[in-house]
């Protein structure tokens, strides 16, 4: 019943397709990796997340190319000539092929899932000497409390900018005063909803000095699109000075005082 499916496709159609597919995959993977997908990475965990994404690109491109190659090849090779009313080969299936395309994808996704789990555990691991920051979302701004900023500073209340010391692990406890918001700093790669009735938690270790933005990513009403707040990752000493000022910006730090709306671009 089963004939070799390549009979009608020229001398070595499978080999030719394989070659075309391999070249296209290589080009696709190169292009996928060349694209600068992510914003700056500013945390220690960003690297492993970006690498995970690159692995996904490397695995995905050949799969897409495989589908495209077979589709385009079939359409050009087996296209009916005008007026051709014949039927194709009555092939009903091929158990071996079907087993292969059940097993191979199962293995690929299982391995990817295991890898992703390892990265997740690593990213979310508890670290020593964490700086605790309470994040409060409200329509349509963010504010930040530091119960114990360290360095002899008193607790900082209601800071309107998020200042973080470079290279110190931070433990965010996220709250909301009204509806659901979502706390996201794209350069940190991490995100968590601020949920009424719950405290959600996120850990990061900023490792690049700079100015970024908190972006609200859960639709929260009229001002959702402009619910932004400045994040500043600074050297330890600058952070301590800021904390001792009670979380007031300005005074030589060169940062414009951010209101409830637009902060400077990161």
């Amino acid at each position: 019943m089963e004939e070799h499916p390549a009979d009608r496709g020229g001398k070595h159609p499978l080999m030719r397709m394989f070659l075309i597919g391999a070249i296209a995959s290589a080009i696709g993977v190169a292009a996928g990796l060349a694209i600068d997908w992510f914003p700056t990475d500013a945390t220690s965990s960003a690297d492993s997340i970006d690498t995970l994404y690159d692995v996904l690109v490397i695995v995905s491109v050949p799969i897409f190319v495989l589908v495209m190659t077979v589709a385009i090849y079939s359409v050009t090779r087996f296209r009916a000539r005008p007026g051709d009313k014949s039927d194709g080969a009555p092939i009903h299936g091929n158990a071996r092929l079907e087993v292969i395309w059940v097993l191979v994808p199962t293995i690929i996704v299982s391995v990817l899932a295991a890898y992703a789990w390892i990265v997740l555990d690593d990213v979310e691991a508890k670290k020593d000497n964490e700086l605790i920051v309470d994040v409060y979302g409200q329509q349509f701004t963010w504010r930040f409390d530091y119960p114990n900023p360290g360095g002899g500073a008193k607790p900082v209340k209601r800071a309107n900018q998020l200042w973080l010391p470079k290279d110190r692990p931070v433990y965010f406890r996220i709250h909301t005063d009204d509806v659901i918001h979502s706390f996201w700093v794209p350069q940190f790669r991490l995100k968590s909803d601020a949920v009424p009735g719950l405290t959600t938690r996120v850990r990061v270790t900023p490792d690049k000095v700079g100015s970024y933005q908190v972006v609200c990513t859960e639709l929260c009403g009229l001002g959702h699109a402009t619910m932004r707040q400045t994040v500043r990752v600074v050297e330890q000493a600058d952070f301590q000075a800021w904390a001792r000022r009670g979380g007031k910006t300005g005074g030589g730090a060169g940062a414009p005082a951010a209101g409830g709306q637009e902060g400077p671009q990161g």
Partner: protein
Amino acid sequence: MTMAARLRAPGWYRAALSLPIGLGVAFAIVCGVRALYGWDPIVDGDAIATVAMISIPIAFLIGIGCFDYWFRWASGAPTIPEDHSGHGATRWQDYFRVNTDHKVIGIQYIVTTFFFFIIGGLLAMIMRAELAAPGQQFVDPNTFNGLFSVHASLMIFLFIIPVFAGIANYVIPLMIGAPDMAFPRLNALSFWMLPTAGILMIASFFSPGGAFATGWTAYAPLSTETPLGQTFFNVAVQFAGASSIATALNFLVTIITMRAPGMTFWRMPLLVWANFTTSLLVVIATPFIAGSQFMVLLDRALGTDFFNAAQGGDVVMYQHVFWFYSHPAVYIMMLPGFGIISEVISTNARKPVFGYRMMAFSLMAIVLLGFTVWAHHMFVSGMFSWLRVPMMLTTMLIAVPTGIKIFSWLATLWRGVIHLTTPMLFALGFITMFTLGGISGVVLAVIPVDIHVSDTYFVVAHIHYVLFGGSVFTIFAGIYHWFPKMTGRMYDETLGRAHFWMSFVFFNLTFGPMHLVGVDGMPRRVADYAEEFATLNAVISISSFIFGLSFLIFLYNMIASWRHGPKAAANPWRAHTLEWQVSSPPPVFNFDEVPTVVGGPYEYGVPGAVHGVFKEPAKERAVAGAGASE
């Protein structure tokens, strides 16, 4: 007919009269209850509007005549003997009344849902105009939030889900050799609930405070606090959901009990399998979204505290219940399309569907797995964290049955005799675009990546690859494929090809770049965005306008061909399934004689193979298997 008689008979006059009666009922209930409790003011506009949204549509359905037969029966009055006068269409007016013919209902569904598709598309065009540049151009943030909320709701609840029900309504009874659906009156009621739901959604734009503006996801507690427009969504979803459930029950009973002799489950065309499995999903899952929206409605209207955290309410529970429906809903919007693609590819490649049984099993696998993945929408929601990894794995495993389908379609192409008709082009376009959507779905399942791209434009890109490049391409394939059967006319191939290529190219230019802006940090559901995303958004907007224009080619082709197209033969595609063995369009009761099914539906190339036979020897019908001698 006298005016009094017109107002008593089912139809548009009585429906028009019923509208003020519905409003009066709402007024009486609200004012009566408020007076009894001594609440002030007794006449409360929002409360009356809320009740009226339920009472007016029900009054309309009674007025137009959906319940006449049942009311007479229930009240013990002598029922009117069925003379089939409510069945079939001989003039265009017959499409505008309660009709029990599944073919009429199918066309009613398809035309109605395409009307809402156009409205939803126009809303998207306004959005893209606003997003063409940063800052505020045309609409204020509240209107913008309303635009994307109504856009998504119309596309999901009033287009993709019901248009598949419309195509299946027309085709399934014919495919299984049945004279009609199992419950023709319920079928009519299902249809008439749809425009009701759609009009409610659109009407929300005229309510004080604007349209519902919390997205189609309507997360509480935002949705319990926003103005009256939200109630339109809560109620519209009930009507659309009830319509969906009733139709799914109808399909299940029809497919289980009304197959022609010899049509075993393993001889059913895959479109029948697809709608069988879709109907299972609808019946099991849809009550959950109905429940979630009733709870929001009760929080809003009666002051319950389901989602009020301060009173012990649980806002994460809303998301669990919502996604327990809305993830399976993705498959409700996809499985019928899988069925269409199997029909189109096997017919146009002149080959049996490769691995037919695995194709059916993979549908069942998707139904089962589809119920085990809902929380992948909630990786950043603050839910209990242990659930994330198992849901990541199940989500990624759905790629396996989906992959079976893709590979089997490719294997069906292999060594076929491929005719690149318009439906075939859309089927091939679907395979490539849906593969991309599936791949970005796996990317989204990977928790550490999802945490970054959750609620960004990456998600917008993904769902449009799945729902437009996926579902809508299959809808176009299906409409072109069965257009000759439904209208008795041929569509124009040149225009069909132009429609395909224009929409294929500009679909990709519209939604492809959204992956980039999403990963780079642009959140979704925003009317304004940072300067750094300006260039790509301008590209997206311009592409989207051309993409939108491509639909006009389709619209012109359909209307012009329906009116003036060349007459279609019974079986222009030389297909084997039963719907092609009767005239185009089919007789009122489908089959003058019931066919007997003696073989599989796709036996192309098998010498002498036959799917269905008709006893009457005088008519030499183009029965299945004729392909071998052609």
